[in-house]
Structure formats: C-alpha cells, structure tokens
C-alpha cells in the first residue's frame, strides 16, 4: 500500500481537491479512496484497464459522492482553493513528497494537458464539466445553452480524439 500511495497520492489528492474544492475534505476523500482500493483491490481486473485508470475512476467517483453529500457547503472553485490553501499543501509538505512519483505525474500531466489542448474548446469544456463536475449531458447542455444531441456528439468526438492523442503518444508519435 505504501508503494501505491507514494506513487499516486499526489495525483489523487489533486483530483479530489479539484472536485471537492476543500483541502481538508479532499484529505478525507483521499484516505477513503485508498482504503477502498485496499479492501476491494481484489476486484480489479487487469483485462478491463490499467491500474491507474481504476484508481482515478474510484477517486473521481468518491470525490463526486462526497461533494453531492455536502451540497450545503459553499462550492469553492479550484482557483479559489489554490489561493486559499490547496497549494499550501505543496509548500508546507514538499519535503515529504515522493519526488519520483511527482516527476512522473508532472510529466504525465503535461502530456495530458497537451492532448486536451488539441481538442476543440467546446469538446474540452464539455469533457471537463462531465469529468470534474459530474454533470450529466443534459445538465451540460443546459449550462452551455446547447442542444443535448450536440453535447453528446461533442463529448463522444472529444473522447475519441483524446484516446487517439494518448495512443499516439504511447506508441511514440510526436506531440504537437
């Protein structure tokens, strides 16, 4: 567990903080995520995806559940959280970081951001609303004032392009 935690905790914590919007609550969700992985890790089927996919899926699900159950709290945007205290976690505890995991995660974050940047702005926005905010296609359509069918198509095409960008990268293609 310690190896798994050292390798992925920074990525999972960033995701939890982004979705939940509160550092202290993100810490609780982080522990919840890894304890679930520890107790239910036997259910992980490698044929159904990579371990990191599984971990991120669990983390997103737990964070969204937590946010929904705390709907009464004032939502804090990531930028606000960054200003107020989320990034403080980095400066206060940088000495306890796993530098290897941070290097790998930082490089991967750069590559994924590059892949997302290749999407149409509408595709990227809709995918991020779906992923980080857990909004349904209908809710996204309402917020963006677009037809539901358009949003479904935008998200589907965006994920296909994202898949291709990530596959091209892993097979050694050039990034742009």
């Amino acid at each position, binding site marked *: 567990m*310690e190896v798994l935690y050292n390798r992925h*905790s920074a990525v999972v914590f960033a995701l939890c903080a982004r979705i939940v919007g509160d550092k202290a609550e993100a810490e609780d969700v982080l*522990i919840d995520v890894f304890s679930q992985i520890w107790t239910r890790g036997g259910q992980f089927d490698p044929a159904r*995806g990579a371990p990191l996919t599984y971990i991120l899926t669990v983390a997103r699900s737990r964070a969204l559940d937590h946010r929904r159950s705390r709907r009464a709290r004032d939502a804090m945007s990531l930028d606000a959280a960054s200003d107020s205290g989320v990034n403080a976690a980095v400066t206060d505890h940088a000495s306890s970081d796993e530098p290897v995991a941070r290097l790998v995660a930082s490089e991967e974050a750069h590559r994924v951001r590059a892949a*997302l940047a290749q999407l149409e702005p509408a595709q990227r926005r809709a995918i*991020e609303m779906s992923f980080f905010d857990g909004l349904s296609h209908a809710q996204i359509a309402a917020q963006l004032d677009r037809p539901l069918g358009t949003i479904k198509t935008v998200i589907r095409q965006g994920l296909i392009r994202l898949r291709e960008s990530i596959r091209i990268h892993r097979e050694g293609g050039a990034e742009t």
Partner: protein
Amino acid sequence: MTCEQCREFLSAYLTGDLTPAEQEAVRAHLAGGCPECAGALVEAQAAFAMVGLSLEPLAPPARARDRLMAWVRATQPRGGGLPISPASPAAAGGAERRDGGKPWRGALAVAACLALVAGAGWHMLQRGQHAQEITTLQRGLAVRDARLAQLQSLVTTSQLSLIALGGQEAQPEASGRVFWDKENSRWHVFIFDMKPPPPGKEYELWFVTAQEKKVPAGTFGVDADGRAELIVQVPPDLGPLALAAITDEPLGGVPQPTGAFQLIGKIE
C-alpha cells in the same frame, strides 16, 4: 445492438448518460464477448480517466499517509524486496594442431623436399590461423582487462554512492543500480529485467537536477536477458542531482524526455 451502435453509445455509457434500455443493450452487447467493443470500452475508460491527470499533482499532508498506514496496519501486514544480479561478458577460443613430414633417400629426396615444402606451407597456414586466434584472444583479454580496471576503479574509489532504480508502470519488473563514483565523476549503470524497447526506439538515461532540469546522459539497448550496462561521465556543472531516470525515446535520443518513464531512482 451492432458494434457501430455500441461504440456510438460508449461515451455516454461511461458517464451514465444512457437510458436504462440503452444501458442494458450496451451491457448485453459487451457481455456477449465482443472483443473489439470491449477493447474500445477499455480505451474510452482510460481516456476519460486520464482527464484527471491533467491537473498538476498536489502533495497531500503527511498526516494523511500516517492515518492511512495506521489503518492498513490494523487490518493487514505488508512487505517488499528488490533483486540484483550482475552480468559479465565472456570470451572463448580453441586451437587445433597438426603436423607431418618424412625423410627419404635418393629419388625420393625431391619428394621429401616437396613434402617438406608442403609441410612447411601447411605449417605456415596453421601459424596464420593460430595468429588470428591469438589476436582474437588478445582482444578479448584486452576487453576483459579494461572491464576489470573499471570495476577496480569502482570498488576502490573513496567516494561511492548507490542509486537504486525502480521500475515504473511501463516496466514494473525492471530494476537497476547506479554506482556513482564521485571521485571520477562517473555513473556505472546496471540494468536488469528490462523489456526490449519498441521498434524504432531505444532507452535514454537522464540526470535530473534538484530544479527538475533533465540532462541527457546517453542511450542504450538491452540484451536478450533484459540487461544493460553503461558508464557515463557526470558533467561538472549540473548542480545538485535529485534523480536518475530512464525513458524510451526515438533512436539517437532526444534533448528532453518525450517518452514514458521506465526506471527512476531517487538520489539521497
């Protein structure tokens, strides 16, 4: 449901945006054992999950690890280890000798001379072959001597640090050791159990500074046993080093990493 219809629905299936009937139809199609659609679902899940990786990692508070580990210890034990085994080159050779000639009086003297000449020629030929074998052996010995000198330098240096390389997600079984000879500013790198690089690629070693600057240190491949050994000079003006890292890159290497991290070692 056809495969084409299934793939149209996969994105919405992932986000839970299908009607119950559509959800069931996709589930039934996948349960029917369609490998292409199952593969497409795995890829779609991975792509969707990767959105979470677009954020810069954030270090959680140290107490989070303490809380989690205390809980784990209360539930189950844990353990770990790391293997090591060196590789070494080898050389071999062999020789075979034959000789012959008979003295003969009178008219057979010519034959004898001819035999002597023939024998001498044969002997000369054998000597030529022996010379080649000797040269080959000498080259092998020179290589071995050079390697012994390198290893002797390594074990007798007054300033030696060890960096353990751990396999990353791309190569969980791989491992390595870097013996940093600070007296002579050299890294002796030993790699074990590494998969061969993809076609058109090779592995590249990196010096990673404390400021996270990545400096190329050389490229290499692995042998049939997944092993590699290389010696690289550490540039004098890098500043404090934090990590040793290996990625897969296009043949010839690149000035900055573009491939996935294969092995990483923290420098204490």
